[in-house]
């Protein structure tokens, strides 16, 4: 009998023996799949949101310069921009104005930003698709449309009506949903911002290799500034999301342990029927090694089934169901962000890490029980 033939017969036997113990197999598979589902959801979500952040930040300026005052971020005088613009290698310096506006009528936080193309068109605004307008009835609000008037309360306490001149395209939802773009004068009116001062500076640099040198020069020239490279932001985001994902996995360690104890228990507690079965197999000439192979294939089929179910469910959960269970914990961003679908992406690396966290502990937990059942003395079992 060839080796493949032998294994085929053993697998055949294993599957039918698992089928005879439907209840037990089902219970283990159910819990196993659930554990894998939880862990895989976290891993998939973390990876997908990292990719999303990466795509978003690709558009960000190569270097942002902030000014600090007593350790806190403050506005940058226009003179800084001129000085930095004269540093060799700096292609352009963009003075940016942006801030957060809390709309007490709808209870939402918006990002207000100056759009240079609106300068001279005071009183007009371009808004993101997530911006809401308070309706006529109590507690009712609807999505804003072009032509609507958006009431804004300025920092001086006055009311400013902004006419919606356009809605930002839907494609970049995550980035623009909460955005309100206004002219520079309107911005300074809303936030009572001092003229000649800006939120931060965005730099374009001719040669990326010079970024570090330019940053050093900026700090030397203006010691109260803090240059931030796009790579630094990316790195920080990645670390934060990894950390959140890792922390969630750690909190699930308890559940994982409980499952391992369950697996151990189920594998140890052989019924009299199963013991008899193994005894008869050995009596008709099966060797210990063969029974161990049965147990091996048993583990493989249970793990493979649960792994596939768990991974499939996690995929649906994260990429179709918008990660209902973990979104608030892992995303941790503004609540306003609308439902957005993450781009589905799974790679072998994620699967192998998940395999290590789930299948390896399960396998280790079942080795000793399978060996015990494989070395049962046929004589004593059948006599009992």
């Amino acid at each position: 009998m060839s080796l493949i033939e032998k294994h085929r017969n053993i697998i055949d036997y294993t599957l039918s023996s698992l089928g005879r113990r439907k209840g037990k197999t089902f219970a283990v598979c159910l819990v196993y799949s659930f554990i894998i589902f939880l862990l895989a959801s976290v891993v998939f979500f973390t990876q997908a949101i990292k990719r999303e952040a990466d795509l978003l930040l690709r558009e960000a300026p190569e270097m942002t310069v902030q000014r600090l005052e007593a350790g806190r971020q403050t506005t940058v005088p226009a003179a800084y921009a001129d000085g930095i613009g004269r540093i060799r290698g700096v292609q352009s310096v963009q003075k940016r104005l942006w801030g957060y506006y809390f709309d007490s009528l709808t209870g939402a936080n918006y990002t207000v930003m100056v759009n240079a193309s609106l300068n001279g068109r005071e009183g007009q605004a371009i808004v993101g698709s997530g911006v809401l307008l308070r309706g006529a009835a109590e507690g009712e609000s609807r999505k804003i449309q072009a032509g609507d008037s958006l009431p804004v309360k300025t920092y001086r306490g006055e009311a400013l009506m902004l006419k919606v001149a356009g809605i930002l395209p839907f494609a970049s939802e995550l980035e623009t949903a909460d955005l309100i773009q206004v002219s520079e004068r309107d911005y300074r009116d809303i936030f009572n911002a001092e003229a000649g001062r800006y939120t931060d500076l965005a730099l374009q640099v001719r040669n990326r290799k010079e970024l570090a040198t330019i940053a050093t020069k900026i700090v030397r020239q203006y010691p109260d500034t803090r240059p931030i490279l796009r790579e630094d932001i990316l790195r920080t985001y990645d670390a934060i999301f990894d950390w959140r994902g890792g922390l969630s996995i750690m909190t699930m360690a308890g559940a994982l342990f409980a499952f391992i104890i369950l697996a151990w228990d189920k594998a140890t507690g052989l019924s009299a029927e199963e013991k008899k079965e193994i005894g008869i197999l050995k009596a008709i000439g099966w060797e210990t090694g063969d029974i161990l192979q049965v147990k091996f294939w048993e583990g493989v089929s249970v793990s493979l089934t649960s792994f596939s179910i768990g991974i499939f469910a996690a995929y649906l959960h994260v990429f179709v169901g918008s990660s209902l269970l973990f979104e608030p914990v892992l995303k941790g961003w503004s609540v306003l962000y609308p439902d957005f679908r993450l781009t589905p992406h799974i790679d072998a690396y994620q699967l192998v890490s998940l395999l290590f966290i789930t299948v390896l502990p399960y396998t280790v937990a079942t080795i000793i029980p399978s060996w015990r059942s494989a070395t049962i003395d046929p004589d004593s079992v059948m006599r009992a």
Partner: protein
Amino acid sequence: MILHPGVISLLIGSLLVTIMLCYSAYEGAIIARDWDINSGSERQLGLERKTYLVSTMMTYAMGFQLLSLFLFIATTDALSHLFIGAMCAAGSLNVNAFGYPTMLLKLANFVLGGIWLIVNAADNRGYDYPLIRIKYILLICLSPLLLTETLLQGFYLLNLSPNLITSCCSVIFAEDSRSFAAGLATLPRQPAQLAFILSAAAVLVLGIRFLRWRKGAVLFALAVLAFFAVSLASIVSFVSLYIYELPTHHCPFCILHAEYGYIGYPLYLTLLLGTISGTGVGALAPFGGIASLAAILPSIQRRLTLLTLLCFLVFLLLTGASIGLSNLDLSAY
């Protein structure tokens, strides 16, 4: 420490493998001490049962060890962008002093573990457990190495701290951003190419000689080991250049990236598998005289030799194809 899912799985994995190995070594020590095949005592029967447990555990442990080598490289690769100046695993392994030792020890343990499995498989085929003492003494020798690996890997992973935005970024800029430059020693290209071709030829000739005349198993194993070392050096020295199509990029890890069609995985897998089976041929050679193995051993060695030659052939075809299909012309360098 970085709480990355890959880091957690590596730590869990190596912890469990170490526990299995320590337990196996402990049981192995008892078996090696008290083993007496001629005895029919309760104790001897118990030990015979235990050998099944140890074999099973070691098989699983080595299976996961194989995966963990690649998981380790993939994880360090995935973490590389958290460190300034690191662009792939080469950079992140250099972040602290434990990275490269862990990597090398993992590689060595991988090969040694594979050889142990071959000895174990041969022993299981003999009816009177002919190699039982030897294989458990080998296991006891192997365990400190694996234990060291787990510790080194733990130190490496726990001592990683990413370069994040701090309240004053100039601290980072003040450092030389190239301080993590890999600095992998590269051999001059022409001698490396010559050594690569010569060692490949030696493996082929000695392999065929062994298959034909059943002579020179140890010599063949030595040639395989030499080819393994030369191949690793060659990948750094010239094969990588052709894959990247860049005369200056020598990295042995970037070939695992998607940009290069994951060519590194089949390259390293065939090289490692071939090395394990090839050295296994030599490791089994001293036991040819044992009566219960005399009939089985030649067929095992024959199969292992064929496997080695097949793996290396695939490896050579892959390297040949990467060089042949490359747009890089190094004749000017």
